[in-house]
């Protein structure tokens, strides 16, 4: 229980494949909104500080992994006196339902928000199975 609750601090070690990362930056779980319209499932992921070339989206089978690499903050000569957020890499993994058209996924990044549009496929036709009489 205690170990589970630690993940609420928004900073969890990378556990995508049970291995450790080589870079020793904190990993932040970004906040996400997911909503479903008539044709699409739309994901909005907050990744402030990440430019569009720092976003890495991979889809393997039904697992959608979103990673964002933020640039370091340019205040090396300054002394930090107050902090409410940490800088690190963003990482979050979702499992998609099977009725997503994987080739039609669109992604865009604007003002630090990643927007992913996942089009739904036409509902699979119900198929009646006839019993053969032996």
């Amino acid at each position, binding site marked *: 229980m205690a170990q589970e609750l630690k993940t609420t601090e928004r900073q969890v070690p990378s556990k995508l494949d049970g291995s450790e990362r080589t870079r020793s930056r904190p990993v932040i779980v970004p906040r996400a909104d997911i909503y479903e319209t008539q044709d699409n499932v739309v994901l909005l992921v907050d990744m402030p500080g990440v430019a569009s070339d720092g976003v890495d989206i991979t889809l393997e089978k039904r697992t959608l992994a979103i990673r964002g690499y933020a640039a370091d903050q340019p205040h090396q000569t*300054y002394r930090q006196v107050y902090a409410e957020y940490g800088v690190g890499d963003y990482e979050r993994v979702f499992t998609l339902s099977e009725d997503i058209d994987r080739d039609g996924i669109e992604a865009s990044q604007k003002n630090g928000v990643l927007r992913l549009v996942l089009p739904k496929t036409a509902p699979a036709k119900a198929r009646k199975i006839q019993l053969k009489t032996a």
Partner: protein
Amino acid sequence: MLLSDFGRIGFDPFLEMRRMQQEMNQRLAGLTAGTAQEFPPINLWVGEDRVAVSAELPGIAPDEVDLTVRENTLTLKGERTPRMEDEKFVWHRRERVYGSFSRTMQLPFRVDPEKVEARFANGLLEVELHRPVADRPKKIQIKG
């Protein structure tokens, strides 16, 4: 013997308990991640005669943020509006916050309102403020 009996009737209390615990943890995780912080979160750096403030404002256009400086306070104001192109939709997950926000922070010294540099890129606001020349500490030489 007892366990195998449960297996036969199709009910495993331990499996049920584990599932309940998992579900509870998921719900708690969502609760704290969504409401714990003030918006926007800020960081503050102090250099020699200058102070830098940065704030995470994802999803907000640069012209939607209102910055005001007064003596030693800096106020950040704005509104984050949801942009849904479709009228009909169902939420699956809602963790991002929307609405108007206003935060006033106290800086360690008075700042020059004419010398404020603000940059906004990728949802990250960086403001650099300078201490007025008249307010800077003056070093006094001690005669021996």
